[in-house]
C-alpha cells in the first residue's frame, strides 16, 4: 500500500470537526482549513400550524380518523366486489371488472390507511427531534484489544497456527469436500447423451416432406407463389410423442419464393433451391430467436430480438446486426407427387454458435 501522508504541512492534522476518538484516523489528502466557519448549532425549533392553532390540530385529527374509516370502507368494498363480480366462464369482460373493482377497493383500503398513519405522525404526534451521539464503529480500544485477546487465546489453546500440518490438512479437506456435490450436478442433463451431436442434427433427412406449421399439411411446389412466405416444419413433427418442442426448436424453416432472377446462389448450392423456392432455417445464428420477418420486395429477413438482418437473395448473408453467420439453407427438391421434400438434413448445425462448432 502506498503512503497516505502528504507533503503539504496543511494536510497533516485531522479535520476539526472530527472528535477525539477519530483523531488517529488519517484524513488522507483532505484539506484542513484553519479558519473554516464553525457549525452554528441548531436553529430555533419552528412550531407547526397544528402546534399553535388548536382548531387546525382538531382538523388534522378528524382527517386522520376519517382516513381510517375510509380504509375500512375500501376493505369492505373489495370484499363486496369479490362477490358482486364473479368470473363467469368464457367472458374476459368479467375478469376485467373483477380485477378493477376488487383492486380499487384494496387500493383504497391500503392508501387511506397509509396516508392516515403518516398524517398522524406528521401533524398530530409531538414534533420531537432527537440528537444521537455517534460512536466509532470499531468500538473502544479496550473492546478491540479484548477481541484480539480472544483470538490469540483461542489460537494458543487450539494450536491452530502452531500445528500447521493439522491446519493445512483441514483446509485441504474443506476445499475438497464440496466436489461430490459439484459432480452430482452432472445429473442435471441426461447421462446418455452429448450436446454436440444433438446440436448438429435435426429431424430433416433425405425425402422428408416440408409441411405447414402448425397443421402438418404437405406443401406442393406449385402452391408457393412468388412473394409467399411459408412457415414450415418437417413431416412427422406433430406426431412426436416426446421432444416435439426440442425438435421444432432446431427444425423450423421459412420457405420463400423469389423471382429466380433475384436469387444469387452459391455455385455449390445451385441445386438446393427449386424454381426460385428457397428454404432457410428460421433459427437465428446469433442467439436463436426465430427470424421470420420477411420483406418480399427487399428480400430481407429481420430478427425481432436483436435486429440481425439477412439477405435472402444473397444466400442469407448478414447485412446488419450482431449475427455473423448466414442462416443455414435446407436443400430442397420436389418428389413425384409435386410435394416439396428435403434433399438431406442441414449441412451445418442450426441456431446459435457454440464453442465446439467449426
Amino acid at each position: 500500500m502506498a503512503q497516505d501522508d502528504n507533503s503539504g504541512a496543511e494536510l497533516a492534522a485531522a479535520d476539526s470537526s472530527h472528535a477525539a476518538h477519530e483523531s488517529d484516523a488519517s484524513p488522507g489528502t483532505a484539506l484542513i482549513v484553519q479558519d473554516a466557519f464553525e457549525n452554528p448549532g441548531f436553529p430555533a425549533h419552528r412550531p407547526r400550524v397544528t402546534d399553535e392553532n388548536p382548531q387546525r390540530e382538531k382538523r388534522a385529527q378528524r382527517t386522520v380518523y376519517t382516513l381510517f374509516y375510509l380504509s375500512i370502507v375500501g376493505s369492505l368494498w373489495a370484499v363486496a366486489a369479490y362477490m358482486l363480480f364473479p368470473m363467469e366462464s368464457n367472458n374476459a369482460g368479467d375478469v376485467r371488472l373483477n380485477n378493477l373493482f376488487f383492486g380499487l377497493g384494496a387500493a383504497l383500503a391500503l392508501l387511506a390507511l397509509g396516508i392516515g398513519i403518516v398524517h398522524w405522525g406528521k401533524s398530530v404526534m409531538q414534533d420531537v427531534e432527537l440528537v444521537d451521539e455517534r460512536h466509532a464503529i470499531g468500538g473502544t480500544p479496550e473492546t478491540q484489544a479484548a477481541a484480539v485477546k480472544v483470538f490469540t487465546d483461542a489460537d494458543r489453546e487450539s494450536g491452530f497456527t502452531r500445528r500447521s500440518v493439522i491446519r493445512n490438512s483441514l483446509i485441504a479437506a474443506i476445499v475438497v469436500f464440496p466436489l461430490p456435490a459439484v459432480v452430482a450436478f452432472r445429473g442435471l442433463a441426461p447421462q446418455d447423451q452429448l450436446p454436440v451431436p444433438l446440436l448438429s442434427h435435426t429431424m430433416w433427412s433425405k425425402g422428408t416432406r416440408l409441411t405447414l406449421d402448425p397443421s402438418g399439411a404437405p406443401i406442393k411446389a406449385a402452391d408457393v407463389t412468388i412473394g409467399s412466405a411459408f412457415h414450415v416444419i418437417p413431416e412427422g413433427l406433430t406426431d412426436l410423442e416426446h421432444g416435439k418442442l426440442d425438435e421444432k426448436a432446431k427444425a423450423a424453416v421459412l420457405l420463400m419464393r423469389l423471382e429466380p432472377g433475384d436469387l444469387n446462389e452459391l455455385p455449390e448450392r445451385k441445386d438446393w433451391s427449386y424454381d426460385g423456392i428457397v428454404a432457410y432455417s428460421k433459427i437465428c445464428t446469433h442467439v436463436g430467436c426465430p427470424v421470420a420477418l420477411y420483406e418480399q420486395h427487399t428480400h430481407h429477413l429481420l430478427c425481432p430480438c436483436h435486429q440481425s438482418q439477412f439477405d435472402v437473395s444473397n444466400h442469407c448473408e448478414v447485412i446488419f446486426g450482431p449475427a455473423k453467420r448466414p442462416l443455414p439453407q435446407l436443400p430442397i427438391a420436389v418428389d413425384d407427387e409435386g410435394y416439396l421434400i428435403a434433399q438431406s438434413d442441414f449441412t451445418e448445425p442450426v441456431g446459435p454458435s457454440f464453442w465446439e462448432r467449426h
Partner: protein
Amino acid sequence: MNRQKRRTGRRHPLATVALLAIGLVFTGGAYAALSAGTTAQAETDTTSQQTIDEGKKLFQANCATCHGLSAQGTDNGPSLIGVGAAAVDFQVGTGRMPMQMQGPQAQEKPVQFTDEQVKQLAYYVASLGPGPDIPSDHLVNGGGDAASGAELFRINCAMCHNVAGAGGALTEGKFAPPLTDVSGVHIYEAMVTGPQNMPVFNDLNISPEDKRDIITYLKYVQDNASPGGFELGSLGPVAEGLFIWIFGLGAIVAITVWITAKSN
C-alpha cells in the same frame, strides 16, 4: 304517466295489434333489405361494364401517372395487371393509394375516394387480368374459431405485427402497421395480396377458413378490452418499464417528499 299505466296493470287491447304490426314491419323490412341486397348484387353484374368504364376514367385521372395509362407500370409504380380487385380495394380503401410521396412505404391516409369509386377502380383493375377478388362477407365477419386463428396469427403474423396486433419495426424505416382498427375485409385482402413488403399468404398457405379464423381472433382482440386493465399500447415490457419508472416511482417519490416535508 308511466307509473299510472303500470298501476292499471293491464295491456291495452291495441297492444297486440301494435306488436304484430311492428313484427311485420321488421320482417318485411329485413326481407326487403335482403332482396335489395341480392338485386344490388345482380345490378353490379349487369352494370359491371359501366362500373369498369367509370373505374377506367378514375384510374386514368388519378393513378396513371405512376402506374401507366393502361396499368402496365412505369419506373415510379409497378404494373397492376393481375393484382386483382382485392389489392386495389386494400390500397385505395385504406388511403395508401394514391401515394403522397415516395418513401420507405406507402402510409395510411384519409381515403381519397367514395366506397363506390373504390369499387369501380377495383373492378377496372380486376378486368385487366385475373387476381384475388374482394372477399365475401362470411369470410371477414369474425365468425370463425378464435383459438385456431390466434395460433395461426402467432406463427404467420405476430413476428411483424406483434402478438396483440400492435405493430412493429421492419428494416430501413419500414414498419408493420398496427392491426387494432383495421377492418376484416382489409386484413383479408392484405393477406392474399401482400401489400408493400408483406409476404403473400395465398389460399394454399392459409386457407380462406384459416384467414377467417385469424380475422376472428383480431376481432376478439379489438372488441374485448384487456382483462387486466389499460394495455399501455400492448407494447410489452418496454411500456411497462417506462410506466413503473415515470408514473410508479414518480408518484412514490412525490409521496416521500410529502412524508418528510414539515407539516404546515
